[in-house]
């Protein structure tokens, strides 16, 4: 692990720990509205100032980081599992099944998935708590985000289908299911792991995009998406640099993930 990767790991660890310790570190609840001091610049009471409703920005950043950093990996795990099942099975079976599966995957990839997310989000029940809404948002991201990974996994599985160790296993009379789960999927682990790591920053950014459209995590629960919405009026931005902290965090986290991914891909 070189210095850069170590630094990335340390930064990610520090950010994750800070977000996990939000209950102790945050000076106020993320939803508490200090209505007498909206849009306050940094003060002793509010180290990163307050937002338009007078909510402490530091508290919202810490809790928002927790939401985005914990749920993005969960969504990545879900999408990688789906990609593993669909892509792995298609690649292993091959033939018409693989063609049909990949055609379906291509169709899924060609969908304008931001609009798809907006549509699916609109169809969901309205009366869900903010916590449920955040789960739903990331679950949707996970369920809809498998297609690109599935293609990679399928290619990997197809490559293994005619490899010597699989031929030997077949010759030994091993059943199809056993072959898939005991021999092929474990060998796809590096590919799946790389897809998992790649998906995390993608889902963080997707949630941020949804948040900017006002369709992400429900108020008052913060997420990076809702925090970044404050920056949408850049034309009128007048040097309030403390508002850039969520953006800086997003850049640091995504960059750190990239360094770690490159390491994992090399290891793979």
């Amino acid at each position: 692990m070189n210095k850069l990767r170590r630094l990335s790991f340390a930064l990610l660890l520090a950010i994750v720990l800070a977000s996990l310790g939000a209950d102790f570190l945050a000076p106020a609840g993320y939803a508490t509205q200090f209505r007498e001091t909206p849009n306050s610049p940094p003060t002793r009471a509010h180290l990163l100032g307050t937002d338009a409703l007078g909510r402490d920005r530091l508290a919202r950043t810490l809790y928002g980081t927790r939401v985005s950093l914990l749920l993005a990996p969960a969504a990545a795990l879900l999408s990688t599992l789906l990609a593993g099942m669909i892509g792995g099975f298609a690649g292993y079976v091959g033939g018409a099944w693989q063609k049909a599966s990949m055609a379906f995957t291509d169709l899924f990839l060609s969908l304008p998935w931001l609009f798809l997310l907006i549509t699916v989000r609109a169809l969901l029940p309205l009366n869900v708590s903010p916590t449920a809404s955040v789960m739903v948002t990331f679950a949707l991201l996970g369920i809809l985000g498998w297609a690109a990974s599935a293609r990679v996994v399928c290619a990997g599985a197809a490559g293994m289908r005619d490899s010597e160790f699989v031929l030997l296993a077949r010759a030994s009379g091993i059943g199809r299911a056993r072959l898939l789960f005991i021999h092929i999927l474990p060998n796809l682990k590096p590919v799946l792991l790389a897809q998992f790591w790649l998906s995390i920053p993608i889902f963080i950014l997707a949630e941020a995009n949804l948040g900017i459209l006002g369709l992400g995590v429900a108020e008052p629960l913060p997420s990076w998406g809702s925090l970044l919405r404050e920056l949408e009026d850049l034309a009128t931005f007048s040097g309030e640099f403390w508002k850039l902290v969520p953006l800086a965090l997003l850049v640091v986290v995504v960059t750190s993930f990239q360094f770690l991914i490159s390491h994992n891909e090399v290891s793979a």
Partner: protein
Amino acid sequence: MMRRTPLIRLAIILLIAVSSLAQAGGELRFCLRSEPKTFNPLLVADDASETIRYLTGGVLIRVNRLTQAAEPELATSWKLSKDGRSITFTLRDKAFFSDGTPFTAEDVATTVRQMMDPQLHSPTGDAFRSGTGDVAVQVLAPNRVTITFPAGVAGLDRQFDQVAIMSAKSPKKEMAVLGPFYVADYKAGSYVLLRRNPNYWKKDTNGRQLPYLDGIRLDIQSNRDIEALRFRRGEIDLINSIDAEYYDRIGEASPALVRDAGPSLDSEQMWFNQVEKAPIPGYRIAWFRSRNFRRAVSEAINRDDLARVAFSSHAKPAMGPVSPANKIWFNAKLKPIAYNTASALQRLQKDGFRLDKGVLRDKDGHQVEFSIVTNSGNKYRERMATMIQQDLGKIGMKVNVVTLDFPSLIERMTESFNYEAALLGLTNVDLDPNAQMTVWLSSGDNHQWNPRQKSPETSWEAEIDRLMREQASAVDFPVRKAAFDRVQEIVADQAPFIYLVNKNALSAISTALQGEVPVVLRPQTYWNIERLTLKAEIAKTRQ
């Protein structure tokens, strides 16, 4: 001394003339936020086309945006019949269209006939449709015309503020205008160029022909960030309507550039879904149909905070369906809705609700929880919804805020009725309550809390129906006012709409522009366009 007086007078006149000349001319620049859909004034249905119509169209009667009174323009006088069906105009002599064709009663007759032609589907004409049958237009003399409608039209004279007279004879058709400017050039997606109408009939007190400006360049720019940036760079001279955040940002740098004209006609409101067949639990519909429940919610919302925090003090707590900005129709007897959680809880107790460890439950033990939907992307509404969420939490109500894209929201509100409470705004462009008939009549499409009722489901809605029909058919203003005042009182008492705030009319105006008097009625900044001038040094650079 006596001998010098004429000289002094002459000097003053010369000074005024020179000063007037120095101020005159130049090209005003501002942005249209969308492409104008039409240049035909009878087909106007969008803001951009409305702007063009206002700047180019000549009307018989103009509602003065400052005083809100109807004033003569191309009609020097008019007379309404007692039954409100007929109006007779006496027209201005020696007025000409921009192409030089003379203005006569035939032009008025042709315009009205076209406007009322069902084949044209004129949105302007819709305001005049009353009863069944044809509209009769009788030219009495070259300068006199009588228009008779099948049934009485309430507020008939003021409706003519929207009717730009078109030429009956000009080969240029709708491009020949009677207003202060005419359309000289148009490049789709880029700009509309207006030039001074050389035949405009109006003159200032010194006898100088209006308008003072040589022309107006309307750049088509839908991105408000870019519009604000261009204003800050001095590339455009005004932004007719800006939101509170832009106002503060621009005002921080240069306070002289922003204007707050006070509460506008626009309101922000929330309402509960009272549709009986709505796909939501029956006990919740029962809450929403309870006057006590609605009034309790209304009292538990801190409107002062909404105006101060969500709109940075550029809004006023709303009192009812009509903004105080509407000087004619606002019911001054309505009292502000006080923020009072104790009173709210008392009202809820009357319906059997009880507060149990901070959680409000109905008489059957159901926890009071509902969602408020609003359109995504509108940060002010999202802020208000979040503040209401916290306010109602103080009386034990659990509120979930849901933002949806606009088409989904409209589908839920008008088709599936799959929502519980909504927070949206109403943009009012017309002072007259007749423009809101579809909102108040129980059979109306925009009777949002329970639209398209076959017959009124409550006695108070039946009473509103009766009063709205009464004011619509009455000709005498006091009768109409009394009826609509009562409607406002019933709405305040029953709270089908929980009015939150009236946003202020905010605008940004360059210091290069002179003669501007921002008002709350549209168009807020250029309603007196013919009398606006640019500073001489700016005007020189924009010849």
